[in-house]
C-alpha cells in the first residue's frame, strides 16, 4: 500500500503535473464563478485537453478543475446572490446577506476555508473508510433512492423562502418541468406538443440559468427608478482577514466535521451530489444551532455548512467510483470516461491492478484542495474587484455569459429561446415570493426520482414496500416530519404575531 501511495505521489508531484493542476484549479474557479458554467461543463471542456497526458496526470488535472469548481461557485453566490453551480445554492442563503451587509471579504474567506477543510476531511475519509461507506451506499435500492429524493425536496421546500406551500409548489413545478421531453426509461416523448425545441426536454442547466440568473439580474435593476442604478452591487469597503477567518472556521469544528461528513455520505450515493449535500448540510447546521433564527441573515455557520458540505462530495463521489466502478455524479462519470480512454478498467479491481493510480488520485485530491486554497487566498482581491464594478457593466455582461453558458451546453439556438422564457417565468415567481431553489432541485432530481420509482415498481408492484424497507421508511418518515415541523413552526410564529394583529383589529 505504501509503495503504491509513494508511486502515485511521485507522479502527482512531477513539475509539469503540478503546473497543469494549477491551471486547472484557476480554470475551475473562474468557470464556476460564471453563472451557468457548472463544474461538469468545465470538466467536459477539460477532457479533450487531457487525452495527450498520462492517465494519472489527466485525472489529476480534472480533479483540480473539480475541486476548484466547487469553490468557484461560491464567488457569484456570495457576491451576486446567484449560485454559480447548483451545489452552491445554500451558500447564497447566508454568504450573500453577509456580503450585502458589507462583509463580502469575510463571506468569501469563510467559504474558501470551509471548502478547503471540507475537501481535506473528505479525502481523509476517502482514504480511510472508502470500502465500508461504498458498501452502505450500494445497498440502497430504488425504493431508498426515491424516498431520499422525496426527503430532499421536502427539506428544500421547508428550508427556503417564507412559505412551505409555495416551496412545495415550486419543487413540484420543477419535477413537472423535468417530465417534458423523452421519458428517462423508454425515451418516449412526453408533453412536447410536437415542438422541436421541447423534443430533447428542458436542459437543467438552461432552467438553472433562466430561473436563478436571469431573474436575479432583472431584479438587480428594479430600483433604478429610485436613482440607484449605477451603484456597485456591494458598495462598502472590502476587508477580509484570511487568517482570522481561518481561526473562525476552526472554531466551529462540530459544524465543519458534521457538514463534511454529510457531504461525504451524500457524495458516495450515486446520483446524489453537491446539489443535495449543501442543502442537507445547511439544514443540519440550522437544526442543531442554538440560534437557528440567525440562518438566512448572514451567519458564518450557514456558509461553513454549505461550502464544507458541497466540497466534501468531491471525495465522497470518488468512493463508489474507485471501489465499485459506479460514478457518484456526472463529474465522476466523466472522470471514469477519462480513465477508460487510457484503457484502464474502473471497478473493484482498480485498487488491486492499478494501486498507484488509485492512491495517486487520493494524493491529487489533497494537492488540488491545497492549490485551490493558495489560488483563492492569493487572488481573492482580484475576485472582489467584481464588487467595484457598477451594475451597468455587471448586469448586461453577466447576462451575456448566461447566454453563452446556455448555448455552449448543446450548441442549440433553441435553448436560448427556452432561456428567455424560463427567465421571465423565474422573474414572475421571484416577484410573487416563490422560492426558486426547490424548483431547480425538482428539475435536477425529477428524472432520478422517476427512474427509481419505476424501477422499484418493476421489481415489486407493491407500493407498501416503500414503507416496509427500513431505510426507505425512515427517509419517508423524515420527509413527513420535516413538513410537520415546518407547519408547526409557522403556526407558532402566527400565534406569536396574533396578539399584535388582534390589537390592530381592535383599533
Amino acid at each position, binding site marked *: 500500500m505504501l509503495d503504491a501511495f509513494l508511486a502515485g505521489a511521485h507522479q502527482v508531484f512531477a513539475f509539469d503535473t503540478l503546473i497543469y493542476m494549477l491551471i486547472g484549479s484557476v480554470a475551475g474557479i473562474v468557470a464556476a464563478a460564471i453563472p451557468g458554467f457548472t463544474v461538469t461543463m468545465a470538466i467536459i*471542456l477539460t477532457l*479533450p485537453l487531457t487525452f495527450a497526458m498520462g492517465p494519472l496526470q489527466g485525472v489529476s488535472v480534472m480533479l483540480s478543475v473539480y475541486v476548484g469548481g466547487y469553490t468557484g461557485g461560491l464567488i457569484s453566490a456570495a457576491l451576486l446572490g446567484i449560485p454559480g453551480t447548483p451545489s452552491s445554492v445554500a451558500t447564497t442563503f447566508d454568504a450573500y446577506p453577509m456580503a450585502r451587509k458589507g462583509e463580502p471579504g469575510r463571506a468569501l474567506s469563510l467559504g474558501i476555508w470551509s471548502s478547503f477543510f471540507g475537501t481535506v476531511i473528505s479525502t481523509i475519509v476517502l482514504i480511510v473508510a472508502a470500502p465500508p461507506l461504498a458498501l452502505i451506499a450500494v445497498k440502497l435500492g430504488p425504493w431508498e433512492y426515491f424516498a431520499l429524493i422525496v426527503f430532499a425536496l421536502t427539506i428544500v421546500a421547508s428550508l427556503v423562502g417564507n412559505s412551505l*406551500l*409555495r416551496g*412545495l*409548489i415550486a419543487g*413540484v*413545478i420543477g419535477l*413537472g418541468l423535468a*417530465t417534458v421531453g423523452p*421519458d428517462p*426509461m*423508454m425515451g*418516449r416523448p*412526453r*408533453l412536447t406538443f410536437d415542438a422541436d425545441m421541447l423534443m430533447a426536454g428542458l436542459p437543467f442547466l438552461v432552467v438553472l440559468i433562466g430561473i436563478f440568473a*436571469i431573474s436575479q*439580474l*432583472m*431584479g438587480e*435593476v*428594479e430600483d*433604478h*427608478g429610485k436613482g440607484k*442604478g*449605477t451603484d456597485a452591487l456591494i458598495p462598502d469597503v472590502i476587508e477580509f482577514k484570511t487568517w482570522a477567518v481561518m481561526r473562525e472556521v476552526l472554531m466551529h469544528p462540530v459544524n465543519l466535521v458534521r457538514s463534511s461528513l454529510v457531504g461525504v455520505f451524500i457524495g458516495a450515493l450515486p446520483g446524489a451530489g453537491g446539489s443535495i449535500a449543501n442543502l442537507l448540510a445547511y439544514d443540519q447546521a440550522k437544526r442543531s444551532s442554538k440560534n437557528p433564527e440567525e440562518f438566512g441573515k448572514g451567519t458564518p455557520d450557514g456558509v461553513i455548512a454549505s461550502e464544507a458540505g458541497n466540497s466534501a462530495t468531491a471525495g465522497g463521489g470518488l468512493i463508489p467510483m474507485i471501489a465499485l466502478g459506479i460514478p457518484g455524479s456526472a463529474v465522476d462519470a466523466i472522470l471514469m470516461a477519462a480513465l477508460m480512454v487510457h484503457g484502464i478498467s474502473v471497478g473493484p479491481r482498480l485498487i488491486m491492478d492499478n494501486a498507484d493510480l488509485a492512491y495517486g488520485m487520493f494524493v491529487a485530491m489533497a494537492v488540488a484542495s491545497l492549490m485551490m486554497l493558495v489560488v483563492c487566498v492569493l487572488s481573492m482581491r482580484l475576485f472582489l474587484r467584481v464588487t467595484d464594478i*457598477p*451594475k*451597468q*457593466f455587471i*448586469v*448586461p*455582461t453577466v*447576462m*451575456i*455569459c448566461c*447566454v*453563452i453558458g446556455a448555448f*455552449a451546453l448543446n*450548441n442549440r*439556438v433553441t435553448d*436560448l*429561446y427556452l*432561456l*428567455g422564457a424560463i427567465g*421571465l417565468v423565474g*422573474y*414572475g*415567481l421571484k*416577484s*410573487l*415570493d416563490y422560492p426558486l431553489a426547490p424548483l431547480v432541485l425538482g428539475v435536477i432530481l*425529477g428524472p432520478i*426520482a422517476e427512474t427509481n*420509482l*419505476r424501477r422499484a*415498481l*418493476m421489481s415489486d408492484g407493491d407500493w407498501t414496500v416503500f414503507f416496509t424497507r427500513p431505510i426507505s421508511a425512515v427517509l419517508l418518515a423524515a420527509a413527513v416530519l420535516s413538513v410537520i415541523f415546518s407547519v408547526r413552526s409557522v403556526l407558532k410564529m402566527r400565534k406569536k404575531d396574533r396578539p399584535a394583529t388582534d390589537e*390592530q383589529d381592535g*383599533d
Partner: protein
Amino acid sequence: MMSPNGKSAAADASASAAMRAKTELARLISYVVFGLGSVYLSVRAGQLPTSRWEPLGAGSFPKLVFAVLAVLCLIAAVRAVVDIRKGGKLDGLGSAFCQWIKVRRVSFAIFGLLVVYLLALPVVGFSLATFVFLMIAQLLIAGISKKTIIQSLIAALIFSVGLNMLFAEVFNVFLPRGVLFAG
C-alpha cells in the same frame, strides 16, 4: 378617543393589510394559472399509452406530479382567498399594478432587449448582436452622458469581440456567426 399616534398606527396597519391582500390576489392568480395548467397537463399525460413491460408507463409519473401540483395549488388558493377576505379592501388595484410596473420598468426593458437579442443572434451573429445589446443595455441602466457612452462603447467592444475570440480560441466553443456573415 384615539390619539394621533394611534390613528397613524391604525392607518399603517390598514394600509399594510390592504397591501397584503393585493399581494395575495396576485398569488391567487398564479395558483389558479398553475392549478388549471397542471390539471390540463395531468390529463394529457394520462393519455400517453401504458407500457406492457412495467406497471408505470411513460405517462404515470407526470400524471402523478401534475395531480399533486393541482392539489397543492387548490390548497394554496383556498388559503389565499381566506387571507384576502381577512385583509379587507382591494380598491386601487389599477394604480397598484401601474406602480408595480413602474418600479420594474428597467427590468422589463432589459428583458425585452434580451428577447430581441436572442432572436437576432442567429441572424446577425454573436459579435454584432452582443455589441448592440451591451451598448443599449448599459446606457439604459446608467443613463446617457458622454462618460457613459465612452465606457459602454469600450465594454461592449471588449465583451462582444473579445468574448467571441476567447471562446473560439481557448475553449473551442464556437458562438453563432450569423446567417448574414456565414461564408
